[in-house]
């Protein structure tokens, strides 16, 4: 029964020796095909959108939106303060370091896997690479997208601060002064974005399970930062006589900001910062970033901020090198990860 009805279904095929190809009106696509650059651009744009959860459900937007809001909060608050009192609490260079560090860590840990690990998990990489793009295009596009996302997270608050301030400013010179202060801040932000995004994407690309990626990224950033801070503090303390103040920690313990109490604050003593302290600061991307910032001319306006480190002085170049090392390692991981596209 089956055989004949199968024939009945598929239409008359003359029983000839060869086969017959039926013309069912299939048409080739003869239109324009966009270039490889456009493909990369499209991939980049799509990744950027998913970094903020756009185009997906509500749940995907919670973390990015919340973190973004928190990032902007100090800017908004400070703009108001500047309007009222004329003094600024937050500088363009450093913004609120602790906030930046923590919130960016969350953003990185939560969103980098969205860009990269999801593709790995659903094994769609062969689909991507069956297109006229090179092996490097995919990670490059993803990286660029995430750098842009981090840029948005970091620079937009700065811009809010800027706009809020100049709205109150009088005269062109004040505005110009603000602008001159803003530019280095934007550049610092750029530095942050590039480095942090690279590391995060590199870590995320190592696994297809988002949970592992998130955990890995969180652990990497938080631990290195905490470690660096502890070690730096330890090294600094041992060079200073007297009990040191408990420095602000990223979670719980320790007072934030300038220490209270009667003991002499460590950072006001002539900075006899031992070499060890500088070297320990090389462990964490965040402290490295701060070191490079200061090496390139940045300052600590109100003493060492709770997220930063002392001026590296002659160790400055070392920080620059370390930055490149982090960057290079991340890129190397990415390149080698996507070189072999199997059913990963």
């Amino acid at each position, binding site marked *: 029964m089956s055989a004949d009805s199968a024939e009945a279904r598929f239409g008359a095929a003359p029983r000839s020796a060869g086969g017959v190809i039926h013309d069912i009106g299939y048409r080739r696509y003869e239109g324009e095909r966009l270039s490889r650059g456009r493909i990369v651009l499209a991939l980049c744009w799509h990744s950027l959108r998913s970094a903020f959860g756009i185009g997906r459900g509500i*749940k995907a937007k919670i973390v990015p939106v*919340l973190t973004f809001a928190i990032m902007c909060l100090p800017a908004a608050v400070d703009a108001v303060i500047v309007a009222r009192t004329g003094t600024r609490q937050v500088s363009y260079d450093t913004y609120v370091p*602790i906030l930046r560090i*923590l919130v960016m860590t*969350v953003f990185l840990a939560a969103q980098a896997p969205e860009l990269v690990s999801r593709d790995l998990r659903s094994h769609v990489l062969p689909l991507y690479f069956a297109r006229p793009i090179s092996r490097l295009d995919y990670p490059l596009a993803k990286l660029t997208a995430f750098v842009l996302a981090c840029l948005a997270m970091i620079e937009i608050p700065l811009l809010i601060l800027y706009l809020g301030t100049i709205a109150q400013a009088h005269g062109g010179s004040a505005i110009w002064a603000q602008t001159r202060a803003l530019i280095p801040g934007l550049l610092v932000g750029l530095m942050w974005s590039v480095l942090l995004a690279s590391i995060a994407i590199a870590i995320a690309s190592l696994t297809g399970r988002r*949970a592992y990626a998130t955990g890995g990224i969180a*652990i990497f950033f938080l631990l290195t930062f905490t*470690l660096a801070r502890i070690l730096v503090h330890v090294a600094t303390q041992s060079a200073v006589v007297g009990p040191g103040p408990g420095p602000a920690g*990223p*979670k719980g313990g320790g007072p934030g900001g300038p220490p209270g109490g009667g003991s002499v604050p460590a950072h006001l003593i002539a900075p006899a910062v031992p070499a060890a302290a500088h070297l320990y600061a090389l462990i964490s991307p965040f402290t490295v970033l701060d070191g490079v910032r200061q090496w390139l001319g940045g300052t600590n306006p109100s003493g060492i901020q709770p997220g930063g480190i002392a001026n590296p002085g002659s160790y400055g170049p070392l920080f620059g090198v370390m930055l490149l090392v982090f960057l290079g390692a991340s890129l190397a991981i990415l390149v080698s990860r996507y070189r072999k596209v199997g059913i990963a």
Partner: protein
Amino acid sequence: MRITFRATMSRKRALLFAIPAVLLLGISGLLKATQPAATQWPPQFLGTFGFSVVLPLTALIIGTSVLGAEIDDGSVIHLLATPVRRSTVIFSKFAVAVGLTIAFAAVPELLAGLIATGGGKLAVGIFAGAVAAAVIYNAIFVMVSVLTTRAIAVGLLYLVVWEGLLVNLVSGASELSAGQYSLGIANAIAGNPNLNAHLSLTTAVIMGAIVTAVTLLLAVRALSAFSLKGDAA
């Protein structure tokens, strides 16, 4: 209870992500090794860092994965397609999580504390606080992992924003912070001002117990109403 056996068996694969926890352990140990160099260094300050960073992170990883990983890849349905009570499921997963967290974070804390101070109230206090933290944090994270698939991200957000920032900035928030509960317990034994604990022992214990109970209850309720996000067929 056999469920715990089952959940423990899942740990075989979970050893993969106990590695971060092991890392934490290793780093704690490493920290201690550098101690001899700094004579002036106050150990309790290290305790708070290890306490406030290592512990919650480990609890996060373990707590969200003990149920979350199964939910994520769908194998939880084999567990749920049995007449086992949902509360039993939650409690046994929770117990495993607490046990693991204690093993991978609280014990290292204790060891670190002992090495740093050579015994004494601080080490014991920190350990007690760490155990409490393991309980409370894991309860929260297990609940979160039932409610959402991106439990780690949400949990991280909670840790950083709530425990990290708000608690320091808003004084009233101490009442609702798991970190503060555990610090309170630690402080009650160790009596060290550098721990920055704002809550008394009774408050900490009571609130901690309440939070634990409420979150676990919510988790049970959520699991009973567990819907499969299945493919359309």
